[in-house]
């Protein structure tokens, strides 16, 4: 056993390598070729894990909470009035028009009686599975930083996202698929692009891997030009022999062995990725459940079904984006500055059925018991319209002071709503929940103490929750 002080010191610097017990190749560098730490028993879970995997549906552009999951009957009364406030709100365009009532009718749903609007009729039918948080707040009312903070806890580029932290902390349950898979909207990547699923300062294997449609779902999965299958097999075989002879000459070490193993896993990935991506074998009834038979819902439906298949095969974290680039006309995200009714109706039509289908499918397979479903957005939208100060406009600006997200599945109290905004839905009024708290709660559901999932980076033991974060105990089952 190594006994000198340097190694003991290194013992505390385990951060360099990640903790995952089964993380793909963290095992491979263990003899110090890259100055890794000794292995130590996995630190996690710290608590009984309720969730084993998660699917994160990430709405780009800002969903209007007061038109979806946060029923504000008083809005009706305030319709056409001015916002009563002395301070200048930090919104995006700065135009404070008159207050507008909700554009969609709310109804009580299911056994739980949760109020959900007609914007999401299918998701509403799953109300009894949902744990809605109606008092979210964010640091930023700008798209990119707001999306960053929702994903990584920081407004800036370069911090690992939630999926990367989970991959780092828990590793993966399959060796032939990445731990963290990203499924972008068919209309394009969200603002900030790959920075949203970066592993930041965590090692590269924790980065989100983009999975696209088509015959090359992962970058460089197959040769960029056609190579006969026979040659592929022979090449792999030849390479292995070449490496074998090399090992015999220079002696074995983890770097050498690791690379050999990585090619074996690569070959597995070439089989398993197309297999998981091929949803044509799913029964018609399932495809219909996800809305794959319908042109509007097909894009999201395919991704939700693919998400389920990935989770089934041991992927830790699947992220599904709803909304592409922020800019453009017509908009391809939830950024309803001009007209909430038009924009949100179109966007919701794309995802409502697929997401409800996903929930239902997870439930019927028993997966919802240990699968976490997250449904978040960058921020909410203002109860007042984005219009001249004497006008009730049709669009709403960004609202970082209060908005709604929901979770479902593993370890949560289902069919409840947590927190409240004020009577018009402008600010979180009761139990404000910051992203730090949200992230702490997600980690907790995975059995992780958010203060103990750390990585040394440039002077600081970094965390997903920075120096903040309280687990929302009231939503835990």
């Amino acid at each position: 056993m190594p006994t000198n002080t340097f190694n003991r010191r290194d013992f505390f610097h385990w951060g360099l390598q990640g903790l995952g017990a089964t993380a793909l190749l963290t095992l491979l560098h263990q003899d110090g070729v890259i100055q890794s730490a000794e292995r130590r028993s996995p630190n996690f879970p710290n608590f009984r894990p309720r969730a084993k995997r998660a699917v994160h549906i990430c709405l780009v552009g800002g969903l209007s909470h007061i038109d979806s999951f946060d029923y504000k009957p008083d809005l009706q009364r305030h319709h056409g009035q001015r916002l009563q406030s002395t301070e200048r709100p930090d919104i995006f365009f700065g135009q404070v028009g008159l207050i507008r009532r909700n554009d969609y009718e709310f109804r009580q749903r299911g056994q739980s009686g949760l109020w959900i609007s007609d914007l999401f009729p299918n998701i509403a039918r799953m109300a009894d599975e949902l744990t809605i948080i109606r008092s979210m707040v964010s640091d930023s009312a700008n798209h990119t930083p707001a999306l960053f903070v929702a994903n990584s806890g920081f407004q800036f580029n370069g911090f690992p996202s939630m999926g990367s932290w989970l991959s780092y902390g828990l590793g993966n349950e399959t060796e032939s698929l990445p731990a963290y898979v990203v499924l972008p909207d068919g209309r394009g990547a969200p603002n900030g692009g790959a920075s949203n699923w970066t592993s930041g300062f965590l090692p590269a294997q924790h980065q989100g891997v983009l999975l696209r449609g088509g015959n090359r779902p992962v970058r460089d999965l197959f040769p960029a030009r056609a190579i006969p299958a026979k040659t592929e097999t022979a090449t792999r075989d030849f390479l292995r022999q070449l490496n074998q002879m090399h090992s015999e000459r220079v002696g074995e070490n983890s770097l050498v062995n690791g690379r050999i193993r990585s090619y074996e896993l690569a070959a597995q990935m070439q089989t398993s990725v197309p297999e998981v991506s091929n949803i044509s074998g799913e029964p018609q009834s399932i495809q219909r459940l996800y809305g794959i038979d319908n042109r509007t819902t097909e894009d999201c439906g395919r991704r939700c079904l693919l998400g389920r298949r990935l989770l089934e095969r041991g992927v830790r974290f699947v992220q599904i984006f709803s909304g592409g680039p922020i800019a453009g006309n017509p908009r391809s995200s939830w950024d309803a500055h001009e007209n909430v009714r038009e924009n949100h109706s179109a966007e919701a039509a794309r995802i409502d059925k697929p997401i409800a289908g996903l929930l239902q499918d997870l439930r019927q397979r028993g997966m919802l018991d240990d699968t976490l479903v997250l449904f978040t957005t960058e921020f909410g939208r203002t109860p007042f319209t984005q219009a001249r100060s004497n006008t009730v406009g049709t669009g709403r600006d960004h609202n970082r002071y209060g908005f709604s997200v929901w979770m479902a599945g593993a370890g949560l109290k289902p069919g409840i709503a947590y927190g409240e905004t004020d009577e018009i839905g402008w600010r979180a009024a009761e139990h404000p929940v910051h992203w730090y708290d949200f992230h702490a709660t997600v980690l907790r559901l995975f059995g992780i103490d958010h203060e103990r999932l750390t990585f040394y980076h440039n002077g600081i033991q970094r965390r997903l929750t920075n120096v903040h974060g309280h687990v929302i105990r009231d939503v835990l089952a």
Partner: protein
Amino acid sequence: MGPTNKTRESFHQRYACFLAALTLLLPSQWTRAQVLPFDKRIAPILASYCLDCHSGKRPKGGLDLSQKKLAFEGGNRGQAIVPGRLTKSSLWERVRKGEMPPKKQLPKAEAALLKQWIIDGAKWGTDPIDPYKYTTNKRAGYDWWALQPLRKPDVPKVQNRKQVHNPIDAFLLAKLENHKLTFSPEASPRALIRRLHFDLIGLPPSPAIVETFTKNPTDQAYNDIVAHLLASSHHGERWARHWLDVVRYGESDGFERNNPRKNLWHYRDWVIRVLNDDMPYDRFAKMQITGDILTNDSHQGVAAVGFLVSGVHNTVVGQSERMRKLARQDELEEIVGTLGQTFLGLTVNCARCHDHKFDPIRQEEYYRLIASLDGVFHGERSVNSPTVQKRIKTVNRKMTQLRSDIATTERPARLAIRQARKANRNRKPQPPEPLAAWNFDKDYKDSVGKLHGKPFGNAKIHNGGLILDGRSHVETKRIDRAFREKTLEAWVILDDLNQRGGGVMSLQKPTGATFDAIVYAEREPHRWMAGSDSFRRTRSFGGPAEKQAKTNPVHIAIVYRSDGTIIAYRNGRTYGKPYKTGFQTFEANDATILFGLRHTPPGGNKFLRGKILQARLYDRALSAEAVAASAGIQSDYVSEKQLLAKLSPATKKHRADLINKLAKLEAELAKLNKARSNKVYSVNPRNPGITNVLLRGDIEAVGKIVTPGGVSSISGLSADFGLKANASDAERRQKLAEWITSQNNPLFARVIVNRLWHYHFGAGLVKTPNDFGFNGGRPSHPQLLDWLASELQRQNYSLRAIHRLIVTSNAYRQSSRKNSKAYAFDANNRLLWRYSPRRLEAEAVRDSILQVAGQLNREMGGPGFVDVEIRPNNGTTYYTPFDPIGPQFHRRTIYRFSPRGGRSSLLDTFDCPDACATTPRRSVTTTPLQALSLLNNAFVLRMAENFTKRIEREAGAEIPLQVKHAFRLAYTRNPTARELKLASSFVREHGLASLCRALFNSNEFIIVE
């Protein structure tokens, strides 16, 4: 910024058992002599366990333990400390009962000390307690190792002196011998030379160098190779890449907009250049902090301070004043944090909201550093160097003189040749009358009418022709008559027959949207064509490839008939076949003539590179006879051959000398012009404001005013810059640079020698090159670190001197083979009993593939090659990697335009950092995605094919010879008999390209032993 109480507890757990080791690492000369027992023994306990709550404005329980008077007064629970009376002292009682500290009991040893202290009469020392005075088990104090002055230690004595090549070895070996270990034997000559090449220049060695050295592996031969590599310009490229990691160099803004920075490369070039010049490190640092000021805004100086602004920059800061201020503070933190970590290994940025939790850096000192850099803003600057301007004038004057001298020398011969031509001309048929004619003998005038031209760019008349450099053109006034039929005619010489798309002569509508033109090789290489808007009237003439136009003037005429027929002529004969197409009229006053440009607006491949000797425009379709007659006209052009034939040998030599001088000046001018009016992404200094401490980092909680200054806990160095709060930006940055680079700043030299060590060996003596504080690593060999740092100072901060020392050490030359005894004791090789094998970094992988494939383009400097599609979309810029083809993309990877968030899978999976923050050490991962990328990436496959072609070219068609050559190029060795057999049969079945691909993927290619 910094963990909460709870986390600190876990830190405590983590570090507590380490206390003993820590004390061992503090040599006695570093502790201060003559200390009061209280200061040394008790104050650290109070500071570590009590003062977080029991001090400050509102101490918990009303008890303040930081000051003598208040501590003895006690708190809400009465007296805390009663000298000599344990039971009366509530401090002790609560500790004894385990109530305090609240979350975790005081360790027994500390509790015993506290008890004894009270029993002994509770004598106080320094008042109030300075919590930074001593290092505790929770944080570093003033006595922290890294903050102590630099002293050059004696070189230790070792038993096995033969193992010592230079003092580095003595320090390492002394420690190894303590553990009954020693160095591994020397690596094989081949492994050594390979290692040296990748390390010093980032490229594999040539097989020849390896062979030569293997035959004669002497120290002298090794040292010669070291000297050669250190002098190579690739050395700067290699080590600049390391530096760019540290300074978070990225060529886009990051954040929401992520706009490209097209002019930051000046900084990258500057780093490469000065590393190649071995600029002393203190100068290197000063230039990056204050180069613009030091050099009077020279191009170099302005480029150098690009360091400060290489990081991310938020360009969407929102509407409110609050958001703007916050963004500015974020920006300054980013700059100060990078500066502190880069040059001092101090994470000063952790003191933005509170005093540093782990290092003796006060919040106020953070804001003093902020004040020092408050004049720094991101921006672009035009650089006009006065010295460059002056030199340009001189060069231009000299060139004019030389041209005139050359003309004088040639004049008699030219006259004679033209006279002879005139005599001939009378016998030729009369040429047709043009509407306009340009002779370009001395100006751009129309010699028939008034359709005079105007030059744009560098267009000029020389030696009887219009000179076009590919960025210039001539345009006439509008033509005052309409065209139906027409003929365009020109005599032209091309600079380069491979150019594509240049317009010789064009009749165009002023917008450029409609045109008919004589165009060279736009659609088909080497062919003349009738260019037109969107090729509407363009078909292939099917004429022969142009072969002469580079050496001889060629006469080209294109005739446009009103029936839509277009006929081309070359040197008076029909060129290919005429064709019939649509017909375009041009109205009066709605068309101009262009020379040297296909159509406006100017740009891209529309420009011609060559010389137009004459041109004619006709408002009718000339007959074949008329064109032939016109082609017979000779210009004033005299070919080089004709001229030389007429010159005497003496004149020829004189003329050649003049031309030679002129060429040199032209080359210099080109360089000067590049340096003259550059836009450089750099610091755009503004008047700094007054800086206040911001309490809790909150921009609205404004505290006291601070003056520019540094960190005071670095011993032997004053942190006061002696400046007023309103000092100028220049004063502030200069003082800051002086403070950082001071000979008395021990961190400055320690940090850089550790960095060099880190890159040479794969791990630093301190494993956290950016953090020499409490949270960082401890030096494995503190004496060696200090010896190296002192040596750097003694060598006038020559980095090259340290490189040389390191790579010529025995430690560096060891084999990388495992030694089971040493491995069992020190698996991580901290004692350096071997050289740790390493995987090539992303850039080295790509560069090596290029070199081995014979495709490496060694062009240095200038704007980077762009292998991403840049798509601006409503303010946000998206970067999508694509796979561009062509030698301009085969430059070394350091010349890649590197926007944040836009990397190819090859760079990505090989851990190339995204430059959002400083990367002092890269993670090294091995993943299946990495394997897939190296196997399947389009670039790799294409290079495998280029590698194949190279082998076929150099080794012929015989498979065993091909295999041998492939191994030599990829591995710098011959294949073994087994490898040869295996590889040959593999090639026979699956082709040579498959072998090349496999070699690129093999361990031996990617791993440096």
